[in-house]
Protein backbone atom coordinates (compact mmCIF):
# COMPACT_ATOMS: atom_id res chain seq x y z
CA UNK A 1 0.00 0.00 0.00
CA UNK A 2 2.75 2.41 1.06
CA UNK A 3 4.78 1.67 -2.05
CA UNK A 4 1.82 2.30 -4.32
CA UNK A 5 1.19 5.64 -2.62
CA UNK A 6 4.83 6.58 -3.01
CA UNK A 7 4.76 5.71 -6.70
CA UNK A 8 1.63 7.78 -7.27
CA UNK A 9 3.15 10.74 -5.39
CA UNK A 10 6.30 10.52 -7.53
CA UNK A 11 4.12 10.31 -10.62
CA UNK A 12 2.21 13.44 -9.64
CA UNK A 13 5.44 15.31 -8.84
CA UNK A 14 6.96 14.39 -12.21
CA UNK A 15 3.81 15.64 -13.90
CA UNK A 16 3.48 18.89 -11.94
CA UNK A 17 7.11 20.06 -11.67
CA UNK A 18 7.67 20.72 -15.41
CA UNK A 19 4.37 22.62 -15.63
CA UNK A 20 5.28 24.67 -12.56
CA UNK A 21 8.72 25.45 -14.03
CA UNK A 22 7.15 26.61 -17.29
CA UNK A 23 4.73 28.90 -15.40
CA UNK A 24 7.51 30.31 -13.17
CA UNK A 25 9.70 30.86 -16.25
CA UNK A 26 6.83 32.66 -17.97
CA UNK A 27 6.45 35.07 -15.04
CA UNK A 28 10.09 35.71 -14.05
CA UNK A 29 11.69 35.21 -17.47
CA UNK A 30 9.66 37.97 -19.11
CA UNK A 31 10.73 40.42 -16.42
CA UNK A 32 14.40 39.45 -16.74
CA UNK A 33 14.29 40.10 -20.48
CA UNK A 34 12.59 43.47 -20.03
CA UNK A 35 15.19 44.47 -17.43
CA UNK A 36 18.04 43.43 -19.75
CA UNK A 37 16.51 45.43 -22.59
CA UNK A 38 16.08 48.51 -20.39
CA UNK A 39 19.67 48.43 -19.10
CA UNK A 40 20.96 47.85 -22.62
CA UNK A 41 19.14 50.90 -24.02
CA UNK A 42 20.56 53.08 -21.23
CA UNK A 43 24.11 51.88 -21.86
CA UNK A 44 23.75 52.38 -25.61
CA UNK A 45 22.66 55.97 -24.99
CA UNK A 46 25.70 56.55 -22.76
CA UNK A 47 28.15 55.51 -25.50
CA UNK A 48 26.34 57.53 -28.17
CA UNK A 49 26.42 60.60 -25.94
CA UNK A 50 30.12 60.14 -25.22
CA UNK A 51 31.29 59.67 -28.83
CA UNK A 52 28.46 61.42 -30.68
CA UNK A 53 27.89 58.39 -32.93
CA UNK A 54 27.95 54.60 -33.04
CA UNK A 55 31.60 53.56 -32.65
CA UNK A 56 31.17 50.24 -34.52
CA UNK A 57 31.31 49.74 -38.26
CA UNK A 58 31.90 46.73 -40.44
CA UNK A 59 33.88 48.56 -43.10
CA UNK A 60 37.54 47.63 -43.39
CA UNK A 61 38.57 51.27 -42.93
CA UNK A 62 36.45 54.34 -42.33
CA UNK A 63 37.90 57.85 -42.24
CA UNK A 64 41.17 58.61 -44.02
CA UNK A 65 42.93 59.85 -40.93
CA UNK A 66 46.33 59.22 -39.43
CA UNK A 67 46.18 56.03 -37.29
CA UNK A 68 48.52 55.69 -34.34
CA UNK A 69 47.62 52.28 -32.94
CA UNK A 70 45.47 49.23 -33.69
CA UNK A 71 44.45 46.04 -31.91
CA UNK A 72 41.76 43.41 -31.65
CA UNK A 73 38.62 43.78 -29.49
CA UNK A 74 36.27 40.94 -28.60
CA UNK A 75 33.04 40.56 -26.66
CA UNK A 76 30.59 37.72 -26.25
CA UNK A 77 27.76 36.32 -24.21
CA UNK A 78 25.76 33.13 -23.91
CA UNK A 79 21.97 33.36 -23.77
CA UNK A 80 19.15 30.86 -23.84
CA UNK A 81 15.38 31.11 -24.10
CA UNK A 82 13.56 30.23 -20.89
CA UNK A 83 11.28 27.20 -20.45
CA UNK A 84 8.15 29.17 -21.27
CA UNK A 85 9.67 30.49 -24.49
CA UNK A 86 10.92 27.02 -25.41
CA UNK A 87 7.48 25.55 -24.73
CA UNK A 88 5.63 28.11 -26.84
CA UNK A 89 8.22 27.87 -29.65
CA UNK A 90 7.87 24.08 -29.71
CA UNK A 91 4.13 24.44 -30.29
CA UNK A 92 4.68 27.23 -32.84
CA UNK A 93 7.17 25.12 -34.77
CA UNK A 94 4.42 22.53 -35.36
CA UNK A 95 2.60 25.09 -37.49
CA UNK A 96 5.73 26.73 -38.88
CA UNK A 97 6.28 30.43 -39.41
CA UNK A 98 8.13 32.89 -37.22
CA UNK A 99 9.28 31.80 -33.79
CA UNK A 100 8.80 35.18 -32.07
CA UNK A 101 10.52 34.28 -28.82
CA UNK A 102 13.68 33.01 -30.50
CA UNK A 103 13.70 36.20 -32.55
CA UNK A 104 13.56 38.30 -29.42
CA UNK A 105 16.18 36.34 -27.47
CA UNK A 106 18.69 36.30 -30.34
CA UNK A 107 18.13 39.98 -31.18
CA UNK A 108 18.56 41.00 -27.55
CA UNK A 109 21.67 38.82 -27.15
CA UNK A 110 23.28 40.18 -30.31
CA UNK A 111 22.60 43.79 -29.34
CA UNK A 112 24.07 43.07 -25.91
CA UNK A 113 27.21 41.52 -27.49
CA UNK A 114 27.62 44.60 -29.70
CA UNK A 115 27.17 46.89 -26.73
CA UNK A 116 29.82 44.93 -24.82
CA UNK A 117 32.13 45.38 -27.79
CA UNK A 118 31.55 49.15 -27.65
CA UNK A 119 32.28 49.12 -23.92
CA UNK A 120 35.38 46.92 -24.33
CA UNK A 121 36.67 49.37 -26.96
CA UNK A 122 35.86 52.27 -24.64
CA UNK A 123 37.83 50.72 -21.74
CA UNK A 124 40.79 49.89 -24.02
CA UNK A 125 40.78 53.49 -25.25
CA UNK A 126 40.03 52.89 -28.94
CA UNK A 127 38.36 55.73 -30.83
CA UNK A 128 36.56 53.45 -33.23
CA UNK A 129 36.06 49.76 -34.04
CA UNK A 130 36.19 48.77 -37.71
CA UNK A 131 35.68 45.49 -39.57
CA UNK A 132 33.19 44.22 -36.99
CA UNK A 133 32.12 40.59 -37.44
CA UNK A 134 29.26 38.84 -35.67
CA UNK A 135 29.04 35.14 -35.06
CA UNK A 136 26.48 32.77 -33.56
CA UNK A 137 27.16 29.28 -32.31
CA UNK A 138 25.32 26.57 -30.40
CA UNK A 139 26.45 25.00 -27.15
CA UNK A 140 25.97 21.51 -25.77
CA UNK A 141 26.04 21.22 -21.98
CA UNK A 142 26.81 17.84 -20.47
CA UNK A 143 23.62 17.58 -18.43
CA UNK A 144 21.00 17.90 -21.15
CA UNK A 145 20.61 14.93 -23.46
CA UNK A 146 18.77 16.71 -26.21
CA UNK A 147 20.53 19.49 -28.07
CA UNK A 148 20.84 22.58 -25.91
CA UNK A 149 18.97 25.80 -26.49
CA UNK A 150 21.89 27.95 -25.32
CA UNK A 151 23.72 29.95 -27.96
CA UNK A 152 26.78 32.10 -27.95
CA UNK A 153 26.73 35.49 -29.63
CA UNK A 154 30.20 36.75 -30.38
CA UNK A 155 31.35 40.08 -31.79
CA UNK A 156 34.87 41.12 -32.71
CA UNK A 157 36.63 43.87 -34.59
CA UNK A 158 39.74 45.99 -34.91
CA UNK A 159 40.10 48.89 -32.53
CA UNK A 160 41.69 52.05 -33.96
CA UNK A 161 43.21 55.03 -32.20
CA UNK A 162 43.65 58.19 -34.23
CA UNK A 163 46.69 60.34 -33.66
Amino acid at each position, binding site marked *: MAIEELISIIGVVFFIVPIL*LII*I*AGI*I*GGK*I*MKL*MQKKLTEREQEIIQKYGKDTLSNL*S*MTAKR*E*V*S*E*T*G*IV*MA*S*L*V*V*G*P*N*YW*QQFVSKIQSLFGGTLNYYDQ*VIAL*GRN*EAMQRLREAADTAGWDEV*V*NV*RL*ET*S*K*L*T*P*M*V*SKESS*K*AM*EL*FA*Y*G*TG*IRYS
Partner: protein
Amino acid sequence: MNASGIIVVNTETVPGKTITETLGVVTGSTVRAKNVFKDIGAGLKNVVGGELKAYTELLGESRDEALQRMVAEAQARGGNAVVNVRFATSAVTAGAAELFAYGTAVKLE
Protein backbone atom coordinates in the same frame (compact mmCIF):
# COMPACT_ATOMS: atom_id res chain seq x y z
CA MET B 1 48.67 45.58 -29.03
CA ASN B 2 49.12 43.03 -26.27
CA ALA B 3 51.86 42.22 -23.76
CA SER B 4 54.08 40.44 -26.29
CA GLY B 5 54.13 43.53 -28.52
CA ILE B 6 52.51 41.77 -31.45
CA ILE B 7 49.78 43.69 -33.28
CA VAL B 8 46.64 41.61 -33.83
CA VAL B 9 43.95 42.95 -36.17
CA ASN B 10 41.11 41.47 -38.21
CA THR B 11 41.55 43.85 -41.12
CA GLU B 12 43.59 42.85 -44.17
CA THR B 13 46.25 45.43 -43.52
CA VAL B 14 47.45 47.21 -40.43
CA PRO B 15 46.24 50.80 -40.83
CA GLY B 16 49.15 53.21 -41.03
CA LYS B 17 51.79 50.49 -41.50
CA THR B 18 53.24 48.62 -44.48
CA ILE B 19 53.55 44.85 -44.68
CA THR B 20 56.96 43.78 -45.96
CA GLU B 21 56.63 40.00 -45.80
CA THR B 22 53.91 37.39 -45.12
CA LEU B 23 54.87 34.37 -43.06
CA GLY B 24 51.89 32.06 -43.61
CA VAL B 25 48.79 31.11 -41.68
CA VAL B 26 49.10 30.80 -37.91
CA THR B 27 46.48 29.04 -35.81
CA GLY B 28 45.64 28.60 -32.17
CA SER B 29 42.95 26.43 -30.66
CA THR B 30 41.75 25.14 -27.32
CA VAL B 31 39.09 22.65 -26.23
CA ARG B 32 37.59 23.30 -22.83
CA ALA B 33 34.81 22.03 -20.62
CA LYS B 34 33.19 23.50 -17.56
CA ASN B 35 32.81 21.24 -14.55
CA VAL B 36 29.55 19.40 -14.15
CA PHE B 37 28.31 21.50 -11.21
CA LYS B 38 28.54 24.70 -13.19
CA ASP B 39 26.75 22.88 -16.01
CA ILE B 40 23.91 22.05 -13.64
CA GLY B 41 23.88 25.65 -12.39
CA ALA B 42 23.62 26.92 -15.96
CA GLY B 43 20.86 24.37 -16.60
CA LEU B 44 18.89 25.81 -13.68
CA LYS B 45 19.47 29.36 -14.90
CA ASN B 46 18.15 28.28 -18.28
CA VAL B 47 14.70 27.75 -16.67
CA VAL B 48 14.18 31.50 -16.42
CA GLY B 49 16.41 32.35 -19.39
CA GLY B 50 18.69 35.34 -19.77
CA GLU B 51 22.46 35.28 -19.78
CA LEU B 52 24.28 32.10 -18.72
CA LYS B 53 27.32 33.73 -17.13
CA ALA B 54 29.24 30.49 -16.46
CA TYR B 55 29.35 29.77 -20.19
CA THR B 56 30.13 33.35 -21.16
CA GLU B 57 33.16 33.24 -18.85
CA LEU B 58 34.30 29.83 -20.08
CA LEU B 59 34.18 30.83 -23.73
CA GLY B 60 35.82 34.20 -23.06
CA GLU B 61 38.76 32.60 -21.24
CA SER B 62 39.17 29.90 -23.88
CA ARG B 63 39.12 32.42 -26.71
CA ASP B 64 41.84 34.47 -25.04
CA GLU B 65 43.92 31.33 -24.72
CA ALA B 66 43.41 30.39 -28.38
CA LEU B 67 44.44 33.91 -29.37
CA GLN B 68 47.53 33.71 -27.16
CA ARG B 69 48.58 30.44 -28.81
CA MET B 70 48.15 31.98 -32.24
CA VAL B 71 50.26 34.98 -31.22
CA ALA B 72 52.95 32.67 -29.84
CA GLU B 73 53.13 30.84 -33.17
CA ALA B 74 53.42 34.12 -35.04
CA GLN B 75 56.23 35.16 -32.71
CA ALA B 76 58.01 31.83 -33.27
CA ARG B 77 57.92 32.50 -37.02
CA GLY B 78 59.49 35.87 -36.51
CA GLY B 79 56.46 37.98 -37.34
CA ASN B 80 55.50 41.15 -35.51
CA ALA B 81 51.81 41.27 -36.42
CA VAL B 82 48.89 38.98 -37.24
CA VAL B 83 46.38 40.29 -39.78
CA ASN B 84 42.94 39.14 -40.97
CA VAL B 85 42.23 37.19 -37.79
CA ARG B 86 39.09 35.01 -37.82
CA PHE B 87 37.43 33.05 -35.03
CA ALA B 88 35.48 29.82 -35.16
CA THR B 89 33.59 27.92 -32.48
CA SER B 90 32.48 24.32 -32.66
CA ALA B 91 30.88 21.99 -30.14
CA VAL B 92 33.11 18.95 -30.46
CA THR B 93 31.46 16.83 -27.79
CA ALA B 94 28.83 17.19 -25.08
CA GLY B 95 30.01 19.69 -22.48
CA ALA B 96 33.03 20.92 -24.40
CA ALA B 97 33.63 23.59 -26.99
CA GLU B 98 36.52 24.19 -29.33
CA LEU B 99 37.60 27.77 -29.78
CA PHE B 100 39.75 28.37 -32.80
CA ALA B 101 41.57 31.47 -33.99
CA TYR B 102 43.55 31.87 -37.19
CA GLY B 103 45.21 34.61 -39.16
CA THR B 104 48.19 35.54 -41.31
CA ALA B 105 51.48 36.27 -39.64
CA VAL B 106 53.27 39.21 -41.24
CA LYS B 107 56.34 41.35 -40.84
CA LEU B 108 55.79 45.07 -40.65
CA GLU B 109 58.46 47.57 -41.48
